[in-house]
């Protein structure tokens, strides 16, 4: 059994294997208990690129295109939010992929579009910075 903390808007803020008594809710936040393991829930939506997830990936402008991998076991499609734009992905080789160009410096924030279903924290959110 794990604990989900939902923000005021219903999106999943965080999840933890510990009981909810250990968490002090902010105004509007709510608690939900889910009958699964912490590790299993953490694998529901994982974004990675070049083997990196859970930390910021820095690349140089003009590097080869970035292949971002998304695993979402059991999903036939996933909607991914890239800097606010939503892309619907279909499976490739059992996972999902999106290709990002490094032509322009800036920051990519990649996370699930449906943040009530998936948690945009942990390994569910990947930030890539393209440096000049």
């Amino acid at each position, binding site marked *: 059994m794990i604990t989900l903390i939902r923000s005021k808007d219903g999106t999943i803020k965080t999840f933890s294997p510990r009981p909810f008594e250990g968490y002090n809710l902010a105004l509007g936040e709510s608690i939900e208990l889910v009958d699964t393991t912490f590790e299993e829930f953490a694998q529901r939506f994982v974004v990675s690129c070049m083997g990196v997830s859970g930390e910021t990936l820095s690349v140089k402008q003009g590097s080869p295109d970035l292949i971002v991998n998304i695993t979402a076991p059991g999903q036939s499609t996933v909607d991914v939010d890239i800097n606010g734009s939503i892309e619907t992905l279909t499976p490739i080789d059992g996972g999902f992929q999106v290709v990002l160009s490094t032509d322009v410096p800036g920051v990519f924030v990649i996370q699930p579009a449906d943040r009530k279903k998936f948690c945009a924290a942990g390994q*569910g*959110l990947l*930030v890539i910075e393209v440096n000049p």
Partner: protein
Amino acid sequence: MTYPLSSDVSSGQPTASAHYNNLRKDALYLGQSPTDSLTLGAYFSRHAANIKLEYLATNRVRVVYNPYHPAAVMVGGCMLKATANIDLPAGYFTGAASLFYIHAVRTAGSTTFTLGANTTPVESDISRVIGTCYWDGTSLSNIISFYPTDGFPQASYDSGWFACAYNNTYTLTHNLSGVPRLVILLHSTDAAGTSELIPVYAVYGDSATKGNIGFTSSLIYVVAANGSTQGCVYSFRRSSGSGYYRVLAWL
């Protein structure tokens, strides 16, 4: 005063009362006057050492055995020492949320001890409080030993890993009975905490790098700043706007 007071007795030599009394004084008071010293038994009556209390699934506790630092405790004047792990039997933690006191319990005919748990700290001739833990009604947490092994002690509070993302504040209830003296925030890139662990001292947001932890007698605040690239951890080892946090606190 000379110590020891007693002296060797030759074979065949009659033992005078002074011999006996000096020997007794040595044994009880290390040769000192009874008006200047407690007896050894009274002096060591509160002795306890090397008691490492650990969580044991499910909802139990264990005194971990270390042959180089075996747990030792004096209970009701009896000197007891562990010779193996000592496990609290199942079923002690039930009912509403409460602080529980862990007792070392002696049994006649044994030189080691067993464990008990109770919501009261009252001791007896056969039981002695050696630590506490918190029962929230379903789970056990904050297991604290009053007489830990030498070296850096186990954390009094451990949040476990939880997912983090930039631009969030996480407020944790530590349930310790005071303001922690030390709080450490760790960052991992994976849920199991198997990646390199980074102690978080600073995060980046609003064009500034700042510390991100605060705490009171009941709460620990962790701020993940709004910088997407370094909002959760900003270090020469790693920067991240996501990942997993774990908070450890010592009372």
